[in-house]
């Protein structure tokens, strides 16, 4: 499972709608995007995920046309668009904080894109499209409202409607839900997803919120320091991260460090302070190297009676469906264990200070380089 071939998008018989070919963006000494290569397929929902400064926004801005690559190529529909200005690109963006025009009402904001077309579309057509679009984003009758009279969620829908009215080939979303509260964000995520399915438009989302990326995307492109680290479906990234960085960024993970002592087939053994720990090889690793054994908290069993590692419960956080325990093993240190409600129902809850045993299967552990 140390393949580096990126999984392709759903329908591989189609041509990519957008393509980065070793596209780099430099600002003086700073390298914001470093030789990005990526194909975006029609109709897919792709997310750029990473911490701030990882290059995800730069990638999106190259797509929109706000930045021209310093080197490499940017293609839309197979055509090189490096120097095509934004107003000539068939893509539209939902901006972070929406960037709605404060001097226009809702209808004028939404119809802005239509009104830029030449020849100008008929007023009746514009009005009809505005009404349709408002309906679609569930804001019927809001056309004459002023922007500042709307809530954050409503503004978000207006921004969405404005970007959709020109029926772009790609809809770009730049952290569109960062300003919404948690509940509203969940709602919007679901709404966006269903909208994307209904419209069949390619969505490209930039986010630093892994949950958001995991829940909405067909594919996630994880970035770090201007480079793409891994691309894949959410489940693949979660189950088979190709680096400690991805494992850490996508979901929670415990890392136990040690030296790789042996390799056999797809499995290997790591010398942990408690003895050898077996796991799957997550990427190219060499015997004798310092590596980490990465284990997801929900893959660890906690038992009052027996297991490989004697631990003491330090802390307990009730999360509803799950309970998260912070446990300590004198040799391994602190690590997290996630226990489902069901398991707790049979084994009983653990109290802080209580002694217990933790264990996991070798298949649940992934051997990754320390980087």
């Amino acid at each position, binding site marked *: 499972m140390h393949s580096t071939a990126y999984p392709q998008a759903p329908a591989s018989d189609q041509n990519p709608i957008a393509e980065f070919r070793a596209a780099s963006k430099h600002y003086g000494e700073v390298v914001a995007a470093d030789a990005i290569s990526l194909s975006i397929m029609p109709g897919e929902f792709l997310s750029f995920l990473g911490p701030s400064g990882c290059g995800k926004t730069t990638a999106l801005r190259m797509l*929109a046309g706000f930045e021209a690559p310093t080197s490499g190529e940017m293609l839309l529909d197979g055509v090189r668009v490096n120097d095509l200005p934004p107003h000539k690109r068939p893509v539209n*963006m939902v901006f972070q904080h929406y960037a709605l025009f404060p001097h226009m009402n809702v209808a004028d904001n939404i119809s802005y894109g239509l009104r830029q077309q030449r020849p100008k579309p008929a007023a009746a057509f514009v009005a009809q499209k505005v009404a349709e679009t408002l309906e679609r984003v569930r804001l019927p009758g809001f056309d004459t409202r002023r922007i500042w009279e709307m809530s954050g969620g409503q503004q978000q829908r207006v921004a969405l409607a404005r970007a959709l009215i020109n029926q772009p080939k790609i809809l770009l979303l730049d952290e569109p839900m960062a300003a919404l509260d948690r509940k509203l964000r969940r709602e919007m995520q679901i709404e966006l997803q269903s909208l994307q399915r209904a419209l069949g438009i390619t969505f490209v989302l930039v986010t630093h919120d892994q949950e958001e990326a995991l829940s909405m995307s067909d594919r996630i492109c994880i970035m770090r320091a201007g480079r793409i680290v891994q691309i894949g479906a959410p489940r693949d990234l979660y189950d088979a991260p190709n680096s400690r960085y991805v494992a850490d960024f996508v979901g929670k993970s415990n890392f136990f460090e040690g030296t790789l002592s042996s390799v056999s087939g797809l499995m290997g053994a790591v010398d942990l302070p408690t003895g050898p720990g077996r796991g799957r090889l997550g990427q190219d690793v060499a015997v004798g190297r310092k590596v980490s054994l990465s284990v997801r908290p929900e893959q660890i069993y906690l038992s009052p009676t027996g297991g490989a590692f004697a631990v003491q419960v330090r802390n307990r956080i009730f999360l509803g469906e799950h309970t998260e325990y912070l446990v300590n093993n004198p040799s391994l240190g602190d690590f997290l264990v996630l226990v489902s409600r069901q398991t707790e129902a049979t084994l009983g809850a653990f109290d802080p200070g209580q002694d217990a045993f933790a264990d996991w299967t070798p298949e649940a552990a992934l051997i990754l380089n320390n980087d």
Partner: protein
Amino acid sequence: MRPKLINRLLLAPAGIWFLAMLVLPLAVVLVFSFGERGQSGGYVPAFTFAQYLNLPARWKAFENTLTLAPVGTLIVLLIAYPLAYFLALRANPKWRTLLLILVIVPFWTSILIRSYAWIFILGGRGIPALLDMLGLHNLRLINTPFAVLVGIVYGYLPLMVFPIFVSLERLDKRLLEASADLGSPPWRSFLQITLPLSLPGMATGCMLVFILLMGEFLIPAMLGGGKVFFVGNALVDLFLQSRNWAFGSAVAVALVVVMLVTVTIYMRAMTRWGNGRDDVSLM
């Protein structure tokens, strides 16, 4: 009780200032405007509308002022806008502060000194002498309407540049990206986004320049050779030469009234235009 007292104490200096510097002089001028001129000038108490009935004698001055103020404001606006635009959106941020300071630097000296400088620049030994060497002979610049215009633009430019600069600098640049993203070429983005959103700055600048131009007398006197007569010049002559304080007061009251009316109409128009927008504040 206590906070109220503190509030009053805090407001007192401003209140006294307002009373002493604005209300009182205006009240005096109003009283004087109903009086009569003394035998050797000055003011004699009376109650007569004679001064107001005599106002048509200064009609020409009002006409000149009401032509100059809007036209001058418009020209200052047309020159200040590109400058403010450059400073706010195009200039290298490293140099922006320096460039802004350069815009204010002329304000560090008196307008009188600067006007004298212009007298020499536009006078026979200045630009016309240079043009003469280039073969353009007998060009007169000083004491022409052009010279007055140069003086006005020069003197009032910063008052217009700054409010526009502030509104342009505050402009969210992503709005322009949004506009471009939605298919608008740069020049149309300027007309549809930048221009309307810098309107508050333009409104403030125009207001400042217009009000000050209504009372202007120095620039036309110095760069126009005293041949152009504005209400401000009429007031100077009435108070300091013919010492007709009563009539001068009536002219001053009329100027204030004209200004109030113009400004009210202007604000009404702006408010209607802004249609209750909270981003369009007038002052």
